[in-house]
């Protein structure tokens, strides 16, 4: 394979596929390398697809992309041991235009996207792991090494889209190891259930979906959240917490997930469903402050490899696709103007990223990780107090509402103290504003 390409893309997740597709459409000679048996066979997601990012790459993706259900309803549940308090947002207006969000099955979606990359003209090789970068005497990246026989390949530029465990970049010294406080571990299961049962249980129609985000006691004191999504003929249930929390909490991730499935508010929704897969994956949640250098001599980094995940809104694949597209567009422009793939010229990618929602959203929430780590009680005390308050108000027992309210605020104050509550509120407000 001692061929020379305009660009090599490492990885066939949303970031790599967006980059390879855009590069190939732009007329470049592209090689994409994926270690999985097929694109998607190594990848895990919740999964919600935000259509805008994909629409900017493949406008008519709805015609044949494997989409599960458009999201009609979003629920947020705060749970304690035996109860939950929740909010629901549902709008029929979601049905008037093209849907903005869908549930998807990542293995199927990635395979479809990869097919589009091939159709656009890129050469895609699977079952091949990139083991290192080739560099010239000056240190400029000029290609990749793979675990195939004679597997060195050369290119003007390498796009690193190898996901959260970006070992290629780490081996090359482009960034250090992830820290347990900057990364979440998520475990999830896919449970099969007949579509009509799903529709009845979740109060939705044939082409409608519900997503439920959960926090509170289900993470058993750890910093994290749970989720339950409806697919066409399956449910996805999972929970993710910071790795530093798992270390302190001492509860194995699969046990946490099993306990969550047995919560009295969740168990009835899963009844009769058959487990078909159990998966785990990391999510780089360090935010803005944890984003490494994203370009250098002959290389750029996109997607999870660069830590581009908005943990507050659970968005990642759209940031991945957008960064992949912006990197590709930068490379195409450089190529057209016959400019070299130097760090200086590739810096244009970072400028475009800074000008997009990707960096602007990450910047907006740059203090959130610190606040969460400093205030783990946000995940324990408040959910408990909230549901206790609700229970108290709803329990009709002859006591008047005013004294009930007084008792509730008394409890809040006892648990956290007036100053503590004000500080929490202030810190959260500052971090989220």
């Amino acid at each position, binding site marked *: 394979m001692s061929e020379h390409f305009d660009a090599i893309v490492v990885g066939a997740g949303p970031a790599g596929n967006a980059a390879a597709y855009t590069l190939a459409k732009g007329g470049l000679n592209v090689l994409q390398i994926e*270690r999985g048996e097929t694109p998607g066979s*190594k990848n895990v997601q919740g999964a919600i697809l935000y259509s805008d990012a994909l629409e900017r790459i493949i406008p008519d993706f709805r015609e044949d992309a494997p989409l599960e259900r458009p999201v009609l309803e979003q629920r947020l549940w705060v749970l304690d041991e035996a109860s939950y308090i929740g909010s629901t947002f549902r709008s029929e207006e979601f049905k008037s235009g093209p849907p903005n969000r869908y549930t998807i099955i990542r293995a199927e979606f990635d395979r479809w996207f990869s097919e589009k990359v091939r159709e656009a003209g890129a050469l895609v090789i*699977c079952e091949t*792991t990139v083991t290192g970068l080739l560099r010239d005497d000056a240190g400029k990246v000029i290609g990749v090494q793979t675990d195939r026989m004679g597997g060195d390949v050369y290119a003007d530029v390498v796009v690193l889209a190898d996901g959260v465990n970006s070992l290629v970049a780490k081996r090359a010294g482009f960034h250090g190891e992830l820290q347990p406080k900057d990364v979440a571990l998520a475990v999830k299961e896919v449970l099969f259930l007949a579509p009509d049962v799903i529709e009845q249980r979740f109060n939705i129609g044939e082409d409608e979906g519900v997503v439920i985000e959960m926090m509170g006691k289900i993470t058993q004191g750890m910093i994290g959240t749970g989720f339950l999504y409806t697919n066409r003929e399956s449910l996805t249930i999972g929970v993710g917490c910071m790795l530093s929390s798992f270390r302190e909490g*001492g509860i194995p991730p699969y046990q946490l997930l099993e306990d969550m499935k047995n919560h009295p508010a969740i168990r009835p929704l899963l009844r009769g469903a058959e487990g078909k897969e159990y998966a*785990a994956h*990391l999510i780089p949640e360090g935010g803005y402050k944890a984003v490494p250098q994203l370009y250098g001599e002959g290389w750029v980094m996109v997607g999870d490899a660069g830590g581009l995940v908005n943990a507050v809104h659970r968005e990642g694949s759209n940031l991945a696709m957008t960064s992949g597209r912006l990197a590709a567009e930068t490379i195409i422009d450089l190529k057209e103007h016959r400019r070299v793939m130097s760090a200086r010229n590739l810096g244009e990618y970072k400028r475009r990223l800074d000008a997009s929602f990707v960096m602007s959203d990450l910047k907006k929430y740059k203090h959130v990780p610190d606040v969460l780590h400093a205030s783990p009680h946000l995940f324990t005390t408040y959910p408990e107090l909230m549901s206790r308050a609700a229970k108290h108000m709803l329990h009709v027992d002859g006591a008047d509402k005013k004294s009930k309210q007084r008792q509730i605020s008394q409890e809040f104050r006892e648990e956290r103290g007036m100053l503590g509550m004000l500080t929490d509120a202030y810190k959260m407000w500052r971090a989220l504003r």
Partner: protein
Amino acid sequence: MSTNTATPVKIEEKLFQNRYRVDEGHPHISVRDSSVCRDACQDKACTFCCPAGCYAPDASGGVTLSVDGCLECGTCRIICAEHQNVEWWYPRGGYGILFKFG
């Protein structure tokens, strides 16, 4: 705090649902120096953080690793940051976990 851990789960039952192509004789993860696990590591976080239960405490006070059910998440590598005692690499191209749904 672990309030409703009333249903202990067997990880094997969960892993049983998954599809793997095992690279016989080529484990992709290994422990660099077993004496570090035994003598220097206090909490042995790998034994309770690995989502596939690949690490188990052994009788001599160390840990044993069996990578067959590995989900390739990367947790063990990162959780061992203090001792950096986990040699972690991807399985050869095409081997390892093969997610049907992901």
